[in-house]
């Protein structure tokens, strides 16, 4: 008897073809397995400064903003809470360096990489598409590049990050169990654009 080696499967792997076949003006794709660490630390404390030095990035203190440092994104989740998003496979090294930086100070680092998957949404109609499911002001003058927001999209909690607000490109960080629903909702919401396309 042979035992198959278990293979990692992303939450939206079964929808790859559907996500790739969206109408002109909307592009959808999954960015699976990103490293996601939740960081809680006093923004004014010594630990925050040590963390910033270890990351080479400042922790954004303005509500609903994110800063990018190389391939690392630091998203504001609350006045003392951030989400660090990095490419796949960085969780152990990143968690170790953060724990070392915090040391004996008060703080917490939790690996949440399996908690959410990421949907990249881009294209000229991306903003219109999102506006169907939430009441957030997505105008590029308000929801600027580097803005992030936690909000219900079609009643499913998502973390929205504007990677580029002028040439709309968003990341939707969606809980694993909600991902198929959100993907199905996005696919359904862009059906009408196929009719008006060329």
């Amino acid at each position, binding site marked *: 008897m042979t035992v198959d080696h278990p293979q990692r499967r992303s939450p939206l792997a079964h929808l790859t073809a559907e996500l790739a076949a969206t109408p002109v003006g909307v592009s959808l794709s999954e960015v699976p397995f990103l490293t996601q660490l939740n960081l809680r630390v006093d923004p004014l404390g010594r630990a925050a400064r040590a963390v910033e030095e270890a990351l080479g990035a400042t922790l954004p203190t303005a509500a609903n903003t994110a800063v990018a440092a190389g391939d690392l994104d630091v998203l504001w989740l*609350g006045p003392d809470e951030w989400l660090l998003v990095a490419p796949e496979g960085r969780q152990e090294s990143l968690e170790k360096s953060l724990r070392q930086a915090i040391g004996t100070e008060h703080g917490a680092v939790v690996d949440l990489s399996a908690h959410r998957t990421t949907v990249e949404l881009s294209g000229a109609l991306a903003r219109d598409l999102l506006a169907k499911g939430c009441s957030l002001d997505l105008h590029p003058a308000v929801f600027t590049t580097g803005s992030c927001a936690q909000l219900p999209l079609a009643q499913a909690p998502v973390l929205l990050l504007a990677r580029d607000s002028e040439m709309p490109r968003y990341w939707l960080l969606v809980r694993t169990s909600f991902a198929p629903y959100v993907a199905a909702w996005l696919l359904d919401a862009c059906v009408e654009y196929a009719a008006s396309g060329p």
Partner: protein
Amino acid sequence: MQLIPCPWCGPRDEVEFHYGGAAHVAYPEDPQSLTDEDWARYVFFRDNPKGPFAERWCHTASCRRWFNAIRDTATHQVLAVYRMDEAKPVTS
């Protein structure tokens, strides 16, 4: 849908928020000495004004912070929001 201005996140849908009852209800200074009736007053008895009312709200769907709001109970208009460490603003 009504928008409630979170002190951190700005105006958001009311469904993102959770109601927390009347604000500024101080915990009894000497709980041991309270009679049953005093406890009942502390736990259950609240003002029920028609007009401005200071309430606690939590922005559960986003930053998950508790804050205070002064809401007109007759019109549902939110007159002011302030963080837990801020003094109650004067509204006319």
